[in-house]
């Protein structure tokens, strides 16, 4: 039993280093997706609250589609779809050779689009919680619409949206495991390869589980800390009032 644990080590024939690199890729794609997905989500949320009926309709269709289609399917459509479109563009531009879609970018776009659809719901909820008076007061002070959003609404938004966005992050972290199917060498990809090479699936998938669990626990702790920080000044939420 214990001699098999050496397979997870860093010595000769050990997969320790590869697993560590895989964990790095998992974190990298999750972190790269996060700002893109959240920002897009905020834009979609603003679209949903827009006075323009076409924008509202577009935003609603967007969220309905990307919340309703399985992430795996979205990933395939974006990976192969962009590949085909860009390949055609590549050829029509008369460039030599073939265009190949980097899996990291495809994964980032697919996960980001899904994240934006889910986070837009959180943003809408948070936007609704900001009272109208805040915007009116900002307007009375002579702030432009953009300034009012950036300086008055947004700082208050973060506090309300944080629990929901924290949840989105946890889901995203686990969803990154899907990018292994488009050959991005994340934890799942490395463990699948290790399984093929060593015929020790229980050991390697068990190890992968523990790595993901570790990331999840760290994230839960981190989100908790951020919430405490965002709620400072709100006695009811455990923050100190001065």
């Amino acid at each position, binding site marked *: 039993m214990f001699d098999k644990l050496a397979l997870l080590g860093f010595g000769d024939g050990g997969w320790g280093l590869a697993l560590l690199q895989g964990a790095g890729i998992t974190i990298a794609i999750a972190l790269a997706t996060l700002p893109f997905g959240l920002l897009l989500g905020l834009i979609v949320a603003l679209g949903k609250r827009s006075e323009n009926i076409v924008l509202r309709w577009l935003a609603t269709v967007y969220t309905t589609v990307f919340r309703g*289609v399985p992430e*795996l*399917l979205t990933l395939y459509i974006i990976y192969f779809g962009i590949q085909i479109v860009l390949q055609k563009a590549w050829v029509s531009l008369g460039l030599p050779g073939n265009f190949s879609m980097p899996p990291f970018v495809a994964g980032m776009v697919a996960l980001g689009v899904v994240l934006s659809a889910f986070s837009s719901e959180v943003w809408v909820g948070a936007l609704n919680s900001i009272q109208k008076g805040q915007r009116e007061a900002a307007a009375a002070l002579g702030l432009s619409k953009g300034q009012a959003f950036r300086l008055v609404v947004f700082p208050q938004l973060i506090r309300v949206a944080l629990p929901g966005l924290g949840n989105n992050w946890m889901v995203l972290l*686990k*969803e990154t495991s899907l990018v292994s199917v488009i050959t991005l060498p994340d934890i*799942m990809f490395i463990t699948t390869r290790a399984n093929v090479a060593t015929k020790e699936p229980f050991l390697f998938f068990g190890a992968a589980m523990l790595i993901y669990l570790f990331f999840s*626990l760290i994230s839960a702790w981190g989100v908790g800390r951020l919430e405490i920080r965002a709620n400072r000044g709100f006695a009811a939420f455990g923050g100190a009032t001065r």
Partner: protein
Amino acid sequence: MSWCEYPGYLFGSEVFQNYGCRMASGLWVTFELVVISVAIGFVLALGLAIARLYGPRWAKAAINGYTTFFRGTPLLCQLFLVYYGLGQFRLFWQDVGLWWFFREPFYCALLTFTVNTAAYQAEILRGAIQSIPRGQFEGAMALGLHRWSTLRLVIMPQAMILALRPLGNELIVMIKASAIASLVTLFDLMGATRLAFARSFDLTIYLYAALIYLLLVEVIRRVWDRLELRLTRHMALR
């Protein structure tokens, strides 16, 4: 022409027509996987949530560990651990006469999904039960109701209404997540679509599959909205 070829015919898509029947039987596999795992998961979750709240300390700790573990790791990883990992102990399963179970990707996916959704549903039910005001327990106690009767007649009916929406979301999450069953050689809707793409290299087949999933999710969402409206019709301000 058999009935399952019609949608493809109507859309004028050759691939969709050719693989319509495979996708229809795939849809049935998806349906079986989701309905069975969510139903068994719900029964398990009821027990887990109650034991998590009112059980002995060791049970609380064990259930806490269980939900943290299964909610903190990807479903794909869990599926591979069950299908490939537990399949590794073939001799053991043959000895105890369970090899027929762990040999089949369908049963492995069913087991994984059930265990996974039970963890999520247990947390949903725990939250719902916990948000019932204390006064409800005290009122039931004052009426001389037994602990189990309190739970069954006073607490659960109210908690289930609160849990209805998140449970509906969990059902939708499971429908979408079931697509990964195709990665352990199972021909669910996603699996049938992957096969069609691998043979035809026609990307539009993925779009038709997306449309089917979308339709499925939208129908469930609307039915669930109706259900909620119906079950809460006695409540004011709804």
